[in-house]
């Protein structure tokens, strides 16, 4: 048993000293440093425009993917022991630390990467597959709104081209889009009855923004790059922040289309009202996790609502200098992080 465990640890050390192992560890630390510098830049230059913020956050996903092979191409001896000893930060010094009876911090690091991979599969890949499967044949379930309905009136005020809108029979508040060759918006009867005409209009405008933005290759490429970093917890967090910025971008587009920021704020409030209390008898740990997720989700929604109510829709600012400087700082510091 001891031998199996020791052999496993030996194999971990051997793996982390190989090029794929170095790639994984360095891309993790490089993305961590990139995330710190990006946050520092956003704070320093008070950047609030979500388009610009999103572009900054993309650095955290993109640069660590390229950094290791790029640095190795520039200096093949970067992986040498001599370079490591003179580096600004050598992560193996921490990872080689013995934590308990010959078990090094590598094992904890491996556990962190494994946990991130599980979260990535459960929370990102499986929902995407489910969504893609559910989208098929959804059209058959919905019906076109009547000409004199509130949904049709709301649609009339939105600029062309408009995606197809379908009504689905459901009393719950449901509003979603299906993407692909023929994108469509689905609104439940419950939503149509609860929201005012203005609110329906802003909600549809927000979804139109999603459809239009989903056509951009940038977002598709970002997601593909994010898949490459499936093991990286920093990429996991940062991708979610990119998605949050995406929501704000779509809010801004919806307001540009409709000019009704308060109506969109009210829609958000109706959709994401106070969370229900958990059912009695539920395991405490599940309840705590759910509450934490609900709380985190509520915070994000509240931030969006506050932004809309304050009408803080930012126009594009001159950010090229800050962007270039941040990129250079990330590239230069990460070169010396091995």
């Amino acid at each position, binding site marked *: 048993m001891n031998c199996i465990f020791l052999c496993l640890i030996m194999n971990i050390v051997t793996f982390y000293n190989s090029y794929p192992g170095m790639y994984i560890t360095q891309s993790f630390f490089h993305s961590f440093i990139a995330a710190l510098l990006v946050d520092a830049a956003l704070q320093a230059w*008070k950047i609030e425009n979500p388009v610009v913020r999103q572009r900054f956050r993309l650095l955290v996903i993109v640069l660590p993917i390229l950094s290791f092979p790029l640095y190795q191409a520039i200096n093949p001896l970067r992986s040498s022991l001599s370079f490591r000893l003179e580096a600004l930060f050598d992560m193996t010094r921490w990872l080689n630390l013995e934590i308990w009876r010959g078990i090094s911090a590598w094992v904890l690091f491996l556990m962190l990467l494994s946990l991130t991979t599980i979260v990535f599969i459960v929370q990102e890949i499986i929902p995407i597959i489910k969504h893609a499967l559910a989208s098929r044949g959804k059209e058959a379930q919905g019906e076109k709104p009547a000409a004199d309905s509130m949904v049709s009136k709301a649609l009339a005020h939105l600029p062309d081209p408009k995606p197809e809108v379908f009504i689905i029979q459901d009393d719950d508040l449901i509003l979603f889009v299906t993407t692909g060759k023929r994108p469509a918006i689905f609104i439940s009867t419950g939503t149509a009855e609860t929201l005012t005409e203005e609110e329906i209009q802003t909600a549809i405008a927000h979804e139109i923004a999603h459809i239009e933005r989903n056509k951009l290759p940038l977002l598709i490429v970002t997601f593909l790059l994010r898949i490459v970093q499936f093991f990286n917890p920093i990429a996991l967090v940062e991708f979610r922040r990119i998605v949050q910025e995406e929501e704000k971008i779509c809010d801004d587009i919806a307001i540009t289309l409709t000019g009704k920021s308060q109506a969109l704020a009210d829609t958000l409030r109706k959709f994401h009202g106070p969370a229900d209390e958990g059912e009695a008898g539920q395991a405490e740990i599940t309840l705590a996790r759910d509450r934490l997720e609900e709380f985190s989700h509520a915070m994000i929604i509240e931030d969006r609502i506050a932004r809309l109510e304050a009408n803080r829709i930012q126009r594009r600012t001159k950010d090229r200098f800050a962007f270039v*400087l941040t990129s250079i700082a990330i590239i230069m510091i990460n070169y010396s992080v091995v």
Partner: protein
Amino acid sequence: MRERILGFIMFVIAVAALIGSLKLLNWTPDMLQEGLPSTYGSIDEVKSKLHIRDIYIPSYYPQGLQWPPARITAQSKPYAMILMEFKRKEDNNVSLAISQTTLPNPVPNAMIEMTRTNERVNFPFKGRNALLEVGLCKDNEQCCRISWNESSYHIEVAMVAPPSEIVKIAESMVYEQAQ
């Protein structure tokens, strides 16, 4: 404009703080645990500080190498490892690297990297079965590498020179072993 300059100053402060923190974090493990990779002034210092008894050193050195080694790097944790790097007198470049690592751990990357391997042969010497590789290093210079297991260690010698020199070095590192 004033805000942009203020932003620039704040960003520079943040970068400086990050660099300082990374330097501090890089130094902290040495305080927490002894035996992590570090440079040493001599082999005797390695022996006394890391308590590594058997260190294989050649008795033959080709002419043109600087003595003592340009750098001796060693560690005892997570496993014992010693790397000696020697520079050439003429151009001050690392041209000989001798490493010794506890089996079955990975060999440290030295400052000599073989970019292309032209030939790889089993090379028996003094009762050991070594692997001799001949190829090219940086600037297309001929270099070679010989590696074998010696008691609980894996020894690797890499050199920017023809194979005849490296074989002499390897042979001078160990005693004759009965077959």
